[in-house]
């Protein structure tokens, strides 16, 4: 069932056991799991079926520190959530991403990759993925990894009819919780806002917040403030350890053999370090995206020339009315070390139309990350040269330690952490089952529970964790 307002939903007399906040990949997946288990669940979606400026306005905020995207641009607030602008790039976090790293504080998850592997078959169905091939070792330091570009499933488009036809799932559009109320043991209710106005209070046996990697922290910070600590009793880590995948062009490469690495439809191949290399150099995980430019004949010559004599190549390229670039381009995205100082705070001066403080995001890349970028490119370049697979050039700004450029990709629009998973209540917000520490009926879904980010796009892991949480809740709620 899908309703356009809370008023319409109330008239239907639906009696849910659980309330999910948000209809993105996590919220929709958990709802489908609960619905399939025969558990009545309501999904509150703040936006409508389509994008609107009015809805996006609730996402405006401010960033302090490094340059970052506008907070109302980097995510979407309507049915299906940020799956509506997802590019469809898929890979699950590596086994090593779940392990603690002695050289990087506050790393390591309370679960292992084996805990989500039983759900990967479901994830492949949801995201329409073929099987991943195993990583291929290129050297002792570098793996050739696979990142699958799926059809970019829009969750509202794919599952909208199923949700509408479901007797166990009610989706309420234009409606969201401005705050949860709690007594330090349970969430006792939620204040709702629907179609631009106060819609009263709402209660359910269980609440699952799936509002995104920025908004989960905002909702819980504000709720906790309003309930005097009654929603997140152990709030030391709430909003903290926020992470992104910084992404920059890192250099160029001339390849010895363009058929050495099978590329995807975008002429791209991906490479990551081995755990042994990360340990030896004491760096974080990273992913190198090699974009081949398979020009034929003279164009290839000019493109290769662009690596060593860019001005000459540019002139020759212009004569051919082409924009030929150095043979292959290298982009690097990397794992941020989790830092408590990278955090989501509530603005002290700016509120949205419902009176909820907007986000103030404090985000800064650390020296370890610049070292990861530089050493990562050196590792890749050394492997390519040693194996005679090609030659790599590292961009000057990286070698010279200059500032990060502001005219590039910057990051992946991947919002992770803020309500991270863990066993230490001073350094985490939820337990291994995504339940808020100390709360009986409050759970968190989505990438805000990530302890570390790995190097790959998060949606595949988000969906796997949502399948796992859906299974867990089905058992808990059915009791």
């Amino acid at each position, binding site marked *: 069932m899908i309703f356009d307002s809370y008023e319409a939903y109330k008239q239907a007399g639906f009696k849910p056991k659980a309330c999910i906040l948000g209809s993105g990949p996590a919220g929709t997946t958990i709802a489908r799991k609960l619905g399939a288990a025969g558990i009545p669940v309501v999904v509150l979606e703040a936006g409508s079926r389509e994008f609107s400026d009015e809805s996006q306005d609730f996402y405006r905020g401010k960033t302090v520190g490094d340059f970052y995207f506008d907070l109302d641009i980097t995510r979407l607030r309507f049915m299906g959530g940020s799956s509506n602008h997802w590019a469809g790039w898929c890979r699950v976090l590596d086994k090593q991403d779940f392990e603690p790293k002695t050289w990087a504080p506050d790393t390591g998850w309370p679960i292992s990759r084996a805990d989500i592997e039983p759900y990967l078959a479901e994830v492949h169905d949801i995201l329409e993925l073929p099987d991943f091939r195993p990583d291929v070792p290129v050297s002792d330091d570098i793996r050739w990894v696979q990142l699958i570009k799926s059809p970019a499933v829009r969750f509202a488009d794919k599952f909208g009819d199923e949700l509408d036809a479901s007797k166990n799932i009610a989706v309420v559009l234009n409606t969201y919780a401005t705050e949860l109320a709690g007594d330090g043991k349970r969430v006792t209710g939620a204040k709702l806002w629907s179609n631009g106005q106060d819609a009263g209070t709402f209660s359910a046996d269980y609440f699952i917040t799936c509002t995104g990697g920025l908004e989960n922290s905002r909702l819980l910070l504000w709720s906790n403030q309003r309930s005097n600590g009654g929603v997140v009793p152990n709030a030391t880590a709430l909003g903290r350890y926020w992470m992104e995948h910084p992404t920059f062009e890192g250099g160029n490469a001339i390849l010895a053999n363009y058929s050495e690495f099978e590329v995807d439809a975008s002429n791209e191949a991906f490479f990551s370090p081995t755990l042994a290399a990360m340990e030896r150099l004491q760096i974080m995980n990273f992913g190198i995206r090699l974009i081949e430019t398979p020009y034929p004949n003279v164009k290839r010559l000019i493109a290769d020339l662009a690596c060593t004599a860019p001005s000459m190549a540019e002139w020759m390229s212009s004569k051919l009315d082409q924009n030929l670039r150095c043979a292959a381009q290298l982009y690097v995205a990397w794992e941020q070390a989790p830092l408590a100082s990278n955090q989501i705070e509530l603005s002290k001066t700016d509120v949205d139309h419902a009176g909820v403080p907007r986000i103030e995001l404090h985000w800064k890349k650390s020296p370890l990350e610049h070292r990861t970028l530089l050493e990562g490119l*050196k590792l890749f370049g050394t492997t390519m040269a040693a194996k005679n697979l090609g*030659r790599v050039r590292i961009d000057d700004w990286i070698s010279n330690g200059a500032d990060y450029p502001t005219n590039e990709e910057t990051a992946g629009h991947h919002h992770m952490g803020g309500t991270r998973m863990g066993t230490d209540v001073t350094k985490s917000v939820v337990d291994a089952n995504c339940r808020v520490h100390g709360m009986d009926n409050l759970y968190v879904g989505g990438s805000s529970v990530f302890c570390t980010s790995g190097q790959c796009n998060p949606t595949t892991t988000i969906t796997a964790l949502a399948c796992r949480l859906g299974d867990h809740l089905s058992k808990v709620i059915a009791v």
Partner: protein
Amino acid sequence: MSRIIKKMSRRTLVQALIALPMLSFFRNQPAVVDPDEIVEVNGWILRRSDLA
């Protein structure tokens, strides 16, 4: 020293003088270069043999 030279035949002395420049071959001998050594030049990560 002069006593040793006096004992040497003139022929031996001339041969020794002729061979003297050869000593330079044993001095400042360049290190053996590994053509597969990885080097960085202007941001490029290369094999030393690329520079030949």
